[in-house]
Structure formats: C-alpha cells, structure tokens
C-alpha cells in the first residue's frame, strides 16, 4: 500500500499548518508577555522575544489587590471542589453499588444538572443572593461553584467506584468489616487517582468561571481572577504586555493541570461537559 509522494506529504503539511493555527494564540500570549514594549508596538510584529523582560509580570503581580484575588480564587475553588467531592462520594457510592427505587431518576437528574444553563440563571441568582444580603462575599460563589461541578463529580466518581471489583469489598465484609469500614479501608484508597482527576477537572471549571462572579461580586476585593483579567485591559489601557502577562499567569496553571490529565480527558467524556 504505497501512496504517492504527494499523498504522503500533504497530511503532514496540513498537520503543521493546523498545529500553528491552534498553538499560535497560546504562543502569542506567552511571547508577548516576555517582550519589551517597543517590540510589542513595533510596526512589524516581533515573533521571537529575543530581548526578554520580566517587567510585565512584575507589573501584573504588583497590580492593586492581585494577591487578594489570587487568594479569593484559590479559596473559592478549593472549598467548592472539596465540598462537592464529599457530597459526590456519598451519592456516587449509592448509585454505583446499591439497588434501590429511584436510582434511575436520580441518574437522569444528575445528567440534566450537568447541563444546567448557569449563564442564563444569573439574574435569579443575583436576586437570591441580594435578598440574603450576601453580595460581594465569597460564600455564595463557593456554594454555586460547588453545585456547578457536583454533577460531573458524581458522574465520574460513579465510574471509578464501579471499576473497583465488588469482590474486594465483599471479602473485607466477610473478614468482619462493616460496609462503611469496607468503603473507607478498601475502596477509598483505590479511588485516589480517580479523586485526583475528578477534583482537578472541578478545579478547572471553578477556576475559569466568569458569568456569576461578574454579576455577584462587583467590589474589587471580592472578585476572582477571571473577572480581574477581563477588566485588566480597561484598567491598564492598551498595555498589552502586562495584559498578556496577566493572562499567562492565569492560564498556565490550567494548561499544566490539563496536560497532566490529558489521558483521562481524551475520549469517553462525551457525556460529561469538561468544558462548555
């Protein structure tokens, strides 16, 4: 099955072009953030930041309240992910291992909740949070982020729990463990990789969330990084170096986590919105 020379070359050529198309924006973000100002605003773009500088990064990091925002983002995301992990662990154990009436209905609700149109619900959430007098606080954000990642967490953990052989649990129970002990001592340690992967996906979702924080937390000290990033341009004029440095600081942790998880991300997640 020999193909002609052209037949063998064109797929590779197209692949290179596509690689550039997909990778260029990310490259341009990082490259711009290292460039000197006169390279950024030169008539012909400078494609390699040969005279690199870290000035833009220090400008972004020294921006008003940057560290408060970092702390806010981390607090909200980590609390949301941990809470949803605990709630999801209980629920996913039930739907993976137990038979009961209403199981199917619950699974359907989980799948529906996975697709909840949060973007369109912001008005109602705004009114609820205002009536509770909790605008510009981190608690409502944490709660709603937890809810946003909960269905996905339940759904994936269910898969991980179902993958642990039932016999392991049963033999632990034969040896005198109660069901709860069997779960804690046998299943839980085997779930560690699954828990890790699930929580990192939850982390990405909550870390990137924008519509809700846009509506709920207008005060500067209660914002999170995505909101700050969209306002960075307005606040810093057209200082593209600093804006791109801020973008890089925000995006690079996510890129790293994603690469770390890529095997679990590819394939089989059609039913779960990893990113939507």
């Amino acid at each position, binding site marked *: 099955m020999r193909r002609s020379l052209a037949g063998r070359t064109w*797929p*590779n050529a197209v*692949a*290179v072009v*596509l*690689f550039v*198309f*997909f990778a260029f*924006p*990310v490259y*341009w*973000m990082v490259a711009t953030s290292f460039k000197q100002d006169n390279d950024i605003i*030169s008539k012909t773009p400078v494609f390699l930041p040969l005279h690199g500088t870290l000035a833009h990064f220090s400008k972004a990091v020294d921006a008003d309240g940057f560290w408060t925002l970092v702390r806010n983002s981390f607090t909200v995301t980590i609390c949301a992910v941990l809470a949803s992990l*605990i*709630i999801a662990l*209980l*629920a996913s154990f*039930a*739907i993976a291992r137990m038979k009961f009436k209403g*199981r199917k209905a*619950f699974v*359907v609700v989980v799948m529906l909740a996975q*697709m*909840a*149109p949060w*973007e*369109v*619900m*912001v*008005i109602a*959430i705004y*009114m*609820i949070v205002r009536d509770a007098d909790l605008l510009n606080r981190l608690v409502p954000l944490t709660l*709603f982020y937890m*809810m946003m990642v*909960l269905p996905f967490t*339940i759904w994936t953990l269910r898969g991980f729990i179902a993958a642990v052989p039932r016999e392991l649990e049963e033999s632990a129970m034969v040896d005198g463990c109660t069901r709860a002990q069997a779960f804690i001592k046998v299943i839980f340690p085997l779930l560690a990789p699954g828990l890790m992967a699930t929580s990192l996906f939850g982390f*990405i979702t909550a870390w*990137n969330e*924008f*519509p809700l924080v846009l*509506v709920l937390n207008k005060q500067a000290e209660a914002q999170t990084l*995505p909101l700050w*990033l*969209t306002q960075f*341009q307005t606040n810093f004029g*057209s200082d*593209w170096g600093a*804006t791109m440095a801020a*973008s890089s600081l925000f*995006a690079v942790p*996510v*890129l790293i986590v*994603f690469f770390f998880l*890529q095997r679990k991300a590819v*394939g089989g997640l*059609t*039913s779960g*919105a990893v*990113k939507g």
Partner: protein
Amino acid sequence: MAVEAERVKARSSDRQRTAASRTSGPAGRSSGQRRRGSADRATLLGRSAPYLLLLPATLVTLLLLGYPLLKNLELSFQNLNIRQFIQHLTEWNGVQNYQDLLSSGEFWHTAVRSLFFTLANVALIMIGGTLVGLLLNRLGKKMRLLLSTGLMLAWAMPIVASTTVFTWLFDSQFGVVDWMLSQLGWSGMAQYNWMSTQLSAFSVITLLIVWGSIPFVAFNMYAGLTTISKELFEAARMDGAGAWRTFTQLTFPILRPFFLSTTFLEVIWVFKCFTQVVAINGGGPERSTETLPVYAFVEGVGNQHFGMGAAISVLTILILLVLMAYYFRIIVKQEDEL
C-alpha cells in the same frame, strides 16, 4: 450481553445472600431479644442507606439549582425595575413581560440571530472537528503527537484568557492578524477595527469559539475512528471506494451515534455561550452581537429590567430544554448503563 450476564449473576448472588440470612435468622432470634432489635434496625438502615447517601446531593441540588430556576420563573411574572428593586417591592404583572417580549421586534431579532450564530458555529465546529479527527487518524506517530499538542493547548486554554488573547490578536493598532492580512496584499486590512461592524465582530467571536471547540470534537472523532477495524477500510479501498465514499458509506454510518450526540452537545454549548461574547466586546457594536443569553444579561442586570431579563432567560431555558430533550433521547438509546 455481558452486562445482562453480570446482572443475572448479581441477582443470583443476592438470592443466595437472602437465603443465608433466612437460615441464620432463627439462630439469631434464639440468642435473645436485644440482638433481634439491632438486626431489624440494621435492615431498616440498610434499606434507607442509599437514600441517606443521596440526601446531601439532593438537598444541595434542590437549593442551589432548583430554587434559582423557580425564582427565575417567579421573577419573570413581575414588574421588577430599578425602583422596585431598591425598595424591595413585589409587583406582579402576570404575563405582561412575555407579551411585551413576544410582540417586540428586538426579541425575535435576537432569537433569529442566536439561531444563525449557533448554526454557523456548530457547522464549522463539526466539519472542522471531523476533518481534523480524520487527519489525526491518518498521521504518523510523531506528527500526530505534534497536532495533538496544538489541539490540547487550544482545548485547555481558559475561555477568559483566550478571549483576552484574541482581542490582542485582532487589535486594530498592533494586532498581528491585521498585519498579516495587509502583508498578504490586503492593504485595506491594515489597522482594521474588527469590533466596528456586526459581521466582523461576529467573525472574531466565531473564530474564537470554533478554535476552542474543534479539539473536543476532533479527539472524540479520532477515538471513535480507532475503534473501527482497519480491515473495513482496507476492504473499502479494495472495492475502489474513494475518500468521500468511504466516509459517507462506512465511517459515518458506524459513528452516527457519535455525530448525533456531539452535534447536539455543541448546539447546546454554543447556544448558551456567554463569556466569549461578553468578554470580547460586551455584545457590541451597538448591541448587534447580543445572543439570547447575553440579551437576557444586558436587559436584566445591565439595564436593570430584572423582570424582563428573567422572562428572556425563561424563554432561553425553554429552547435549551427542547434541545436537551433531543440530546437525552439520543444518549439514553446509546447508554445501557443508565
């Protein structure tokens, strides 16, 4: 078949277990009253255990998802503008908001715009994603790794960050896209302001969404392709089928479920997409790139017509529900593990 067998096995082992407990029952009873009480309690607990485990998740979902949805519906029947908002007044106005909306040109205009926006994006995403997936399948190992890396970068990029980067790429003064277009001989594009017209703003938004969404479709397409055995393609080639016929007569029919579910998923995602449109230009120029979710946000939160905004969201959610119903019909057919 395997699943069925599994179920039968599970059922029979259950039966064995109940038989065992039945035989051990009398022995337990003879050893005293206290023991029996605790056994009863154990079975009661055992029977309610799944519900107890589901309780936190159910409560949280009702409170944080169910209640806002109901609240949204409630708000849509109210006359709730800035005055009522500040004074905490509740003024019911029946279906007035809906009447106003459905008789206004603006709503229908936005709805149609949303529809075309979704169609254009999904068509580009599905065609692009399929082609890239097919290409991935044809590449050698090294080139596949290269292309996958590029796709992975685009996929992983946080939407807010990629929106910021696209604004910079399409900047009218120093943007690299304008420079490249003028370099390619299109001198009118030097210093072109992409946010100045509806069409150009939509082009940037579309490119941003398509760029970020193709990787998901491409990877899934590739994963699907690897499940088709090589012999089938070989046979098709022996019979003299070209690339197009192989795709329409072999690949597409086999991966039909994949195409259906992914298309619907993309339709839902694009239709409710919000961040890209808002963060790139706030729905501008002059509100001409507002899609339904953005329209609801601008009316409701921006212009503080909360009731009207809620009515727009309810209508948007209804459209989404119809789409989701179709999606669920597709995947319920596919997934027997439900």
